[in-house]
């Protein structure tokens, strides 16, 4: 929903995405639940209606995104693999980079918000040690405070 929100609305001053899917075509096969999303939400595989998958993939709507966005993935997340975020383009001229794991794109550095501390190197996804659960709050809150 974060990716959908920032590609369909400009009413938010900052946004944070924890994992999530940006490309439903690659998601069809690259997740550890192949076909789950298509069966649950679409009802057919990509090759039966390719354009439908394109329309529901934020990756292809990213030109509409203006909101500073903090992107966070676990490097060992098999459900929403980290490479899903690495394909997101980073606006040139912002000085933004895409480090492995903990990611930040586009406006967050541009607006003075801090980048994440680094990769969630050993994280498999949402199941993680207690110490790591608090980590998004340490990255999201300063980013939101800087942008909102």
């Amino acid at each position, binding site marked *: *929903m*974060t*990716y*959908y*929100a*920032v590609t*369909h*609305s400009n*009413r*938010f*001053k*900052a*946004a*944070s*995405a*924890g*994992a*999530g*899917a*940006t490309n*439903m075509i690659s998601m069809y096969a690259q997740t550890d639940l192949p076909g789950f999303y298509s069966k*649950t*939400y*679409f*009802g057919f595989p990509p090759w039966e209606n390719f354009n439908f998958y394109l329309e*529901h993939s*934020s990756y292809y709507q990213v030109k509409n995104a203006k*909101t500073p966005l903090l992107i966070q993935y676990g490097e060992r997340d098999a*459900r*929403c693999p980290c490479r899903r975020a690495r394909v997101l383009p980073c606006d040139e001229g912002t000085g933004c980079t895409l480090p492995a794991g903990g990611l930040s794109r586009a406006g967050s550095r541009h607006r003075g918000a801090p980048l994440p501390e680094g990769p969630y190197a050993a994280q498999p*996804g*949402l199941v993680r040690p207690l110490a790591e659960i608090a980590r*998004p709050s340490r990255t*999201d809150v300063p980013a*939101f405070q800087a*942008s*909102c």
Partner: protein
Amino acid sequence: MPNYRGSTGYGEKWRQGNVGSLGANEFDDIDTGINYVIQRGIADGDRLGFMAGAMAAT
């Protein structure tokens, strides 16, 4: 935290509310909720943030 269509707690029709329109219906519900809390004076419409994880981040 909004409980938008496609989530749980309101029966099967509600649960199926985002099938075939992933993103649009959920965001419409969230947007409606935001407008409501702004109207009530609970939220500042000029200082909105959006945070979600896992499927909700998609």
